[in-house]
């Protein structure tokens, strides 16, 4: 590689002063305008000054003088042919002479330091400027190192010829270095500022590019050829610098041999909190010595860049997870309500989207030959332009045995190239590699696999878990579809939901026995699923939580709240890891069970510890965290600092948050809220980290549930309170839905079973009454005949029965029986399989019909009738058609409207006119209907239980307590939608229905 010199020796470096004026000290006598003013003493003094100056001063004479009209190129060689006529001590010393006298009369060439011709460039400049030169240049030294010289020269021209040169040289190498380093430091500082500004605001998918760009700019700045950054996480980014920067790493020994690879390298290890996190290496082909500070500078840049990469990794992971969560959720919703006959088409359609999601060429499912799955679903799909579709692909059944089968049956994963001995359909299709995941815990599948037309050595980290979950969703969907009974259906959905969450899930008996656990649970603890089920809480929890349950947790749990705390779990091999546990109760009316969702927080712990330990990495990580972080002083909850995520959560600018109190952002603060929260501070000091839950306002006027972990930390040696804030809105909703679903399915199943048993006796009652009424009626020949045989007058008997009220009693029995039959028929809807099929319908029309039906219904028990209620409609006329059973949605709407009217009638002291607002809107992939009233509202307990069968706040005889539960089943079971309620005591209630758009 050709050694690159940054600037030719002898080239002017820069004009220190643009003025071509000669210095006064060298001005020729004859030029002086006021000769009288110059006295001989001062002239002599100046001479002495020059003699003793550390600058080299000299005068060379040309003999013969050089005609100034010669071409420049001819003058240059002549300029080297002069003789020294005078010099000072510094000039003599630099040439190894004791005094100037030893040198007078010597030729210019003999006194020239450096190779012949090195002054050509300067001379050219000198001639061009009219025999004047003032500027800096790089000069060679006798030992081969470079010097920077500030030179001043003035040519004396007599009669059109250059007669002699006066000049002085000053060695400013050191000065130049200091100036350059200073200006470098400034540029470096600017570079750092830009780096932090740009890099941390960069979208995560562009960070690698941004880092490379930064490395290039760094290389440019410190003048090297290549810069390479490698992190321990596997990132390896190299930048080759194209354009030379300013001369900074001055060559110490010039490499003249172009063949000598030589060069200089500097590798700096980057550490954080004493742990190596990566390395930054710079190289240049020149040989140079690195300034000491370069190491620190590189380390700083490297640390920032790695932090930026980590941040983008974290963000990408989160983003990927979000995308997948949405995808998996959509998938399970898509399957929800699918009938057996539609399942093959649905699975096929989803396999295509799964393949697209995973970016693979083919996807397949295998099932043992005797399983029903083998016959009921299409098992594979391949991108037509990538792989041949062998006949086996669509035949729906594969030979499931062969190499690797045993591993798959064990639930393991195979990732290999297709070698021709297995998976014949892959060979036939021309696939080169595949990844296959065994799913033994899924009832109807055995494995799900993906394949690529090219050899894939490393599958993305996410592919396997994604397939596992997709496989589980499909498998469980098949089971759900195949299995009769709403209860079992819900469990499958429940499981599928849990499997997606990525958290370990446990269902625990009151005595601590593990009743159920998901795959994540057994995997994280190192047990098989069966193995885990034989364990109890004490086996996996390192601390004895028993006492804690009784004293701290139980009171909260009993209120139906969920509690979050941190604990430690023990794996089967004895190792432990930190976890965050969310615990809630599952009250199935039969017995109370605990539901625990457990998240491995090893990574989060590490991050938190890094923040606490390493001050300089603090800023980076502070803003990179996906949780909100708030810093308080030690003794109050004044907000001193927040990170970007926190501002994002609150939806306000940082300035609005600083110095505020956390409760300023609470959604529904009460008089004591601030005090209650302040008291947590005391607990932090006394008992260590504390967790609290709150509702905060967000920008869109809605509220978010947050979970705050308060802990005391040392930041730069100062004690602070750090609050890590996580948005748990989604989690809370999911938990609420899970518990609700579970509860409703259990209660619904019980109710349905009970209803069935009641139908027989009810038949006896209703039919008995009808027979009785018919047999006492006069006019029927049989009645007449028997009466005559017995000598009874039927008309007379009827008069008696009517007078004594017997007929009324019978009518009473019939009416009561009919009502009971109605209730039972409602209850049976809980387990009713989808009777009719959903038809694309206009929700606005359905809503309108329900409104007019409600208005037409006059309920004598209501003090004011529905016609006096003002109904506001805020409907979205662009709403697409929604697949639904319109009579059922109508039934739900009428139910909600009836409830709303009731709620407002009971709001007796309200001055507002009764008003119901009905809204329809599109909400992503959902259609939303809202029914909002200004009635009495519900307390939290009522809101949570509102959908339970037989739970009613209406008086006896006013309501059966089934309206909302039937609505619930209609929306969730028959339509795959959701229904929820928001309410505030005294302000009103809003019911929200979401129906999938298809």
């Amino acid at each position, binding site marked *: 590689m050709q050694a690159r010199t940054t600037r030719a020796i002898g080239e002017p470096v820069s004009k220190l002063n643009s003025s071509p004026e000669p210095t006064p000290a060298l001005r020729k006598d004859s030029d002086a305008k006021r000769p009288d003013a110059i006295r001989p003493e001062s002239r002599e003094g100046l001479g002495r000054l020059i003699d003793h100056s550390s600058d080299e001063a000299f005068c060379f004479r040309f003999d013969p003088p050089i005609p100034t009209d010669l071409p420049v190129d001819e003058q240059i060689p002549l300029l080297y042919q002069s003789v020294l006529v005078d010099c000072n001590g510094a000039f003599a010393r630099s040439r190894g002479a004791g005094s100037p006298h030893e040198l007078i009369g010597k030729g210019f060439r003999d006194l020239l330091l450096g190779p012949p011709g090195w002054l050509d460039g300067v001379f050219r400049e000198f001639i061009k400027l009219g025999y004047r030169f003032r500027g800096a240049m790089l000069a060679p030294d006798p030992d081969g190192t470079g010097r920077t010289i500030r030179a001043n020269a003035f040519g004396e021209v007599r009669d059109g010829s250059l007669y002699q040169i006066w000049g002085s040289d000053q060695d400013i190498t050191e000065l130049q270095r200091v100036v350059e380093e200073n200006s470098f430091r400034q540029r470096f500082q600017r570079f750092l500022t830009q780096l932090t500004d740009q890099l941390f605001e960069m979208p995560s998918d562009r960070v690698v590019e941004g880092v490379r760009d930064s490395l290039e700019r760094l290389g440019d700045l410190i003048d090297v050829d290549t810069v390479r950054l490698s992190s321990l996480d596997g990132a390896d980014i190299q930048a080759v610098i194209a354009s030379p920067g300013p001369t900074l790493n001055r060559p110490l020994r010039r490499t003249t041999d172009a063949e000598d690879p030589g060069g200089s390298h500097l590798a700096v290890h980057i550490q954080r909190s004493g742990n190596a996190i990566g390395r930054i290496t710079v190289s240049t082909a020149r040989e140079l010595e690195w300034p000491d500070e370069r190491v620190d500078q590189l380390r700083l840049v490297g640390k920032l860049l790695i932090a930026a990469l980590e941040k983008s990794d974290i963000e990408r992971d989160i983003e990927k997870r979000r995308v997948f969560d949405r995808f998996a959720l959509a998938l399970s919703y898509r399957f929800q309500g699918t009938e057996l006959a539609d399942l093959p088409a649905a699975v096929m359609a989803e396999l295509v989207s799964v393949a697209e999601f995973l970016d693979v060429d083919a996807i397949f499912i295998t099932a043992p030959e005797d399983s029903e799955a083998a016959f009921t679903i299409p098992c594979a799909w391949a991108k037509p332009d990538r792989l041949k579709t062998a006949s086996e692909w669509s035949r729906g059944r594969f030979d499931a045995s062969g190499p690797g089968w045993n591993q798959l049956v064990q639930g393991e994963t195979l990732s290999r190239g297709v070698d021709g001995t297995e998976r014949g359909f892959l060979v036939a299709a021309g696939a080169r590699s595949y990844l296959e995941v065994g799913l033994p815990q899924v009832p109807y599948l055995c494995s799900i696999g993906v394949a690529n037309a090219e050899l894939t050595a490393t599958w993305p980290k996410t592919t396997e878990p994604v397939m596992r979950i997709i496989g589980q969703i499909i498998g469980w969907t098949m089971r759900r579809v195949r299995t009769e009974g709403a209860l079992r259906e819900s469990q499958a959905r429940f499981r599928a939901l849990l499997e997606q969450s990525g958290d370990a899930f446990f269902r625990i008996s009151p005595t601590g026995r593990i009743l159920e656990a998901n795959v994540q649970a057994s995997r994280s603890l190192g047990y098989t699923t069966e193995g885990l089920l034989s364990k109890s809480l004490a086996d996996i929890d390192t601390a004895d939580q028993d006492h804690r349950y009784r004293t701290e947790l139980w009171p909260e749990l009993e209120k139906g709240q969920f509690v979050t705390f941190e604990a430690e779990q023990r794996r089967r091999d004895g190792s432990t890891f930190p976890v965050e546990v969310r615990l809630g109760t599952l009250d199935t009316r039969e017995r109370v069970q605990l539901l625990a969702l457990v998240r491995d927080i090893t990574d989060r712990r590490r991050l938190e510890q890094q923040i606490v330990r390493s001050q300089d990495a603090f800023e980076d990580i502070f803003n990179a965290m996906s949780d909100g972080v708030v810093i308080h002083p030690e003794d109050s909850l004044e907000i001193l600092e927040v990170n970007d995520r926190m501002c994002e959560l609150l939806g306000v600018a940082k300035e609005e948050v600083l110095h505020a109190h956390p409760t300023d952002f609470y959604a529904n603060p009460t008089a004591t809220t601030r005090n209650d929260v302040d008291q947590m501070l005391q607990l932090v000091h006394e008992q260590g980290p504390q967790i609290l839950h709150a509702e905060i306002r967000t920008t869109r006027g809605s509220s978010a549930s947050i979970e705050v972990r308060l802990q005391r930390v040392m930041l730069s040696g100062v004690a602070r309170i750090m609050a890590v804030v996580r948005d748990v809105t989604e989690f809370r909703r999911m938990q609420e839905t899970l518990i609700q679903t579970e509860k409703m399915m259990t209660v619904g199943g019980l109710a349905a079973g009970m209803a069935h048993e009641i139908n*027989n006796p009810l038949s006896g009652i209703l039919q008995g009454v009808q027979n009785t009424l018919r047999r006492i009626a006069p006019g029927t020949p049989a009645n007449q005949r028997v009466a005559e045989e017995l000598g009874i007058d039927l008309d007379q008997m009827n008069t008696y029965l009517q007078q004594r009220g017997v007929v009324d009693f019978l009518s009473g029995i019939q009416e009561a029986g009919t009502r009971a039959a109605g209730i039972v*028929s409602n209850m049976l809807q809980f*387990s009713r399989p989808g009777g009719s099929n959903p038809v694309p319908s206009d929700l606005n029309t359905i809503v309108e019909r329900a409104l007019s039906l409600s208005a037409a219904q006059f309920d004598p028990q209501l003090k004011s009738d529905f016609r006096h209620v003002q109904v506001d409609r805020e409907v979205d006329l662009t709403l697409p058609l929604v697949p639904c059973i319109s009579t059922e949605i109508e039934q739900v709407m009428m139910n909600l409207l009836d409830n709303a009217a009731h709620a407002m009638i009971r709001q007796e002291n309200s001055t507002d006119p009764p008003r119901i607002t009905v809204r329809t809107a599109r909400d992503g992939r959902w259609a939303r209907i809202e029914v909002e009233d200004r009635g009495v509202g519900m307390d939290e307990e009522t809101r949570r239980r509102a959908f339970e069968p037989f739970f009613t706040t209406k008086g006896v005889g006013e309501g059966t307590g089934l309206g909302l539960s039937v609505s619930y089943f209609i929306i969730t079971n028959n339509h795959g939608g959701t229904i929820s309620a928001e309410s505030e005591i005294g302000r009103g209630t809003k019911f929200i229905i979401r129906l999938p758009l298809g």
Partner: protein
Amino acid sequence: MDPTTRILVVEDDPTVRLNLSAYLEDDGYDVTTVGDSGEAIEAARTDTDLSVAIVDVRLPSGTGDDLIRTLHEIRPSLGFLIHTGSVRYELSEELRSIGMEPGDVLQKPQVDMTTISRAVARIIARKARGS
């Protein structure tokens, strides 16, 4: 109405059984009641004039579906009505293949028993057309 039309009621609940037979007798039918499948098969073998059987689905000695299949083999001319307390009962392919229709399934409790009368009359008419 043909007074000789004979109906078999297969129902294990004595009250329901009694009520059904009383109502149908009042309609003018000749009603035989039995409490389980064995008795029903016995009745079908001995009584050659049976026109319609009203069958409960849950019986102590097997399902109503099985019983109907057996009765159909013994007496192919027999028409059937199903009277069940389960809302989830669906007519099987096999029962459809012997000519039963969704309207032949009656839910308990029948708030208005004229529905049963109409169903019986409809089956008798259908059988008359068919033969």
